């Protein structure tokens, strides 16, 4: 590499110093962390000349690496738990992670469900740790590698074969603090053969503080298992939030993941999904609402490595103010993944002249008997539809809200069967639309 002698940015130097200080204090295998940090530091913070980060220049966006948050006090926990997200009302098995530390594990677990704090699992060398990093595409990713180097806590979750977990498992990642801090959380979920589970994530934190959460959720889903995953990014107004979902699917799996972005100065959500067994179905969907100078990136790599799998990706973005939306989606179909059916769509509505949407859907197909399609749209709300609604008495903002709500609700309607969860997420969308005026 020609620019190997690149000058380190303040944030890169900061991260190197933080790693030197904290690595001996963090639980688990130090060699793994060293290896992960090396994978990160070889390339440094990714910038716009790195294809995967073309529209989200992390080197420019992350000026300073904030120190990692210490263990929260009782007062911190109380303050964080007051961040009452809309998913809190759902009857669930709840784990609370404050500032990157698991502070409250579920009181009682149904049979077949095991939840171990990650810190403990790392300390004891839990056998499931061997399942981390199951999706190779993620390894060299900067956010993933940094998380692997710094991960402090989170959870290891096992759903035993054939277990149908009735209530959703809700992981509440709450943050609190008055000055910038960083967190690195990791959750590993192993859903064994024929098991089924609903997993919720809420991410929330204080407004006006430039905190830096970087979370990874990894799922290993065995044959005939069923996973429904809904994630709400309601981080604070000034946060820079990186998140990665990896999922490795066995055969005949039904997998659904939905991500809602409502707020946050900078967010990047990455999904690395690998079909490793035949005949699985995956739906990866999301809705993003941004305004002001917010920046929201969704980056997907959908790897069809096994035959006869179906994937549906549907992402909706509403851009107001001077905000910037990014969608990068790549479907890879290996030569042996015949009969793959992959469809990816990203649609954006620009509500202002200054907003930007960058859409980059890609297909890499090496098999001949496949059905794959991708599409991307970006435009304003239809003037004729707006006039029709207004002629019925709806003021402009209300007419816009009605059209936007139906636009944003599509990925919810297509994937989420749990009505209360769908309603709670729709409520977040309505709240955002109402706040427009």
């Amino acid at each position, binding site marked *: 590499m020609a620019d190997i002698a690149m000058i380190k940015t303040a944030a890169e130097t900061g991260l190197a110093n933080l790693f030197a200080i904290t690595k001996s204090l963090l639980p688990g295998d130090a060699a793994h962390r060293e290896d992960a940090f090396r994978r990160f530091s070889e390339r440094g913070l990714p910038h716009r000349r790195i294809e995967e980060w073309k529209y989200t220049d992390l080197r420019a966006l992350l000026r300073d690496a904030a120190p990692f948050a210490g263990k929260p006090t009782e007062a911190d926990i109380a303050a964080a738990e007051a961040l009452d997200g809309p998913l809190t009302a759902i009857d669930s098995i709840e784990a609370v992670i404050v500032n990157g530390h698991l502070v409250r594990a579920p009181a009682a677990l149904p049979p077949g469900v095991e939840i171990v704090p990650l810190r403990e699992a790392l300390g004891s060398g839990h056998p499931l740790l061997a399942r981390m990093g199951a999706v190779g595409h993620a390894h060299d990713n900067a956010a993933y590698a940094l998380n692997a180097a710094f991960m402090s806590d989170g959870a290891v979750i096992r759903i035993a074969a054939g277990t149908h977990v009735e209530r959703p498992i809700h992981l509440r990642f709450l943050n609190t603090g008055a000055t910038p801090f960083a967190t690195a959380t990791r959750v590993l979920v192993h859903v064994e053969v024929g098991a089924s589970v609903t997993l919720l994530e809420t991410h929330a934190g204080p407004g006006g503080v430039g905190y830096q959460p970087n979370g990874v959720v990894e799922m290993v889903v065995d044959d005939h298992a069923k996973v429904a995953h809904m994630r709400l990014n309601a981080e604070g107004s000034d946060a820079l939030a990186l998140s990665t979902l990896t999922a490795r699917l066995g055969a005949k799996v039904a997998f659904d993941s939905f991500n809602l972005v409502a707020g946050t100065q900078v967010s990047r959500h990455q999904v690395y999904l690998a079909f490793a067994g035949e005949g699985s179905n995956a739906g990866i969907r999301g809705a993003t609402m941004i305004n002001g100078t917010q920046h929201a990136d969704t980056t997907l790599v959908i790897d069809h490595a096994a035959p006869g799998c179906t994937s549906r990706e549907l992402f909706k973005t509403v851009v107001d103010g001077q905000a910037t939306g990014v969608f990068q989606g790549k479907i890879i179909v290996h030569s042996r993944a015949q009969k793959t059916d992959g469809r990816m769509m990203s649609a954006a509505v620009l509500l202002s002249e200054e907003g930007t949407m960058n859409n980059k859907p890609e297909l890499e197909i090496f098999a001949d008997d496949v059905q794959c399609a991708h599409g991307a749209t970006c435009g304003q709300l239809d*003037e*004729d*539809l707006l*006039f*029709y*609604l*207004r*002629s*019925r*008495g*709806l*003021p*402009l903002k*209300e*007419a816009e809200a*009605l*059209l936007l709500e*139906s*636009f944003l*609700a*599509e990925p919810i309607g297509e994937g989420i069967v749990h009505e209360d969860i769908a309603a709670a997420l729709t409520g977040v969308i309505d709240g955002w639309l109402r706040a427009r005026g």
Partner: protein
Amino acid sequence: MLQINNLVVQIEDKRILNGLNLTVNKGEVAAIMGPNGSGKSTLSYVIAGREDYEVLDGEILLDGQNLLEMEPDQRAAAGVFLAFQYPLEIPGVATMTFLKASLNAQRKARGEAELSTPDFIKRVNAAAAKLEIQKDMLKRALNVGFSGGEKKRMEILQMALLEPTFCILDETDSGLDIDALRIVSEGVNTLREAGRGFLVITHYQRLLNYIVPDTVHVMASGRIVKSGGKELALELEANGYADYRQSDAA
């Protein structure tokens, strides 16, 4: 109630209305007939407040209020309703949701309380039954996959529900078979009352057998060129619009 004086309208530098004058009184059903392209839909859009048009001259007064200074939703709240010639499909918005949002927006604009859901549903169901609209249609996305006739009935349902004081029907008869025409016309006729005015735009005389007008106006080249009673419609039916087209060329 509606008074249009010397209305001149253009779109993309093309004159469409050329000094149109028209008065419709309270309780009156006025029909406008005219050849295709004479500007009938343009007139209805300009009254309802569509933005693409440039009004170069003239005024539109509804009970003395200057409509041209009002937003489309304000005009609706003031009592204007347009049954579109081509009703729009709104994917993802359930008909019920749309109806409720419209009704409550108008009630709010008039300072009335929002209707409770049961009251609202009762009203919709009653209006739908009269127009022979199936209940499951109300759950579907507005106008999406509806037949031409179903869309037109849905327009009249909205009209019945919103109880406007001035109703414009733009070629509501087009695309209707004889049964649907009868149902729609009955729907309109039950709304006829002393305080409400109608502007019924049509290309054919047929509709006017069902909705019998008080006055008939002939429109050509963006102007009202002849006005009369309901017998004028029959005359047009017999002779066609040839006379008026000639006068365009002159």
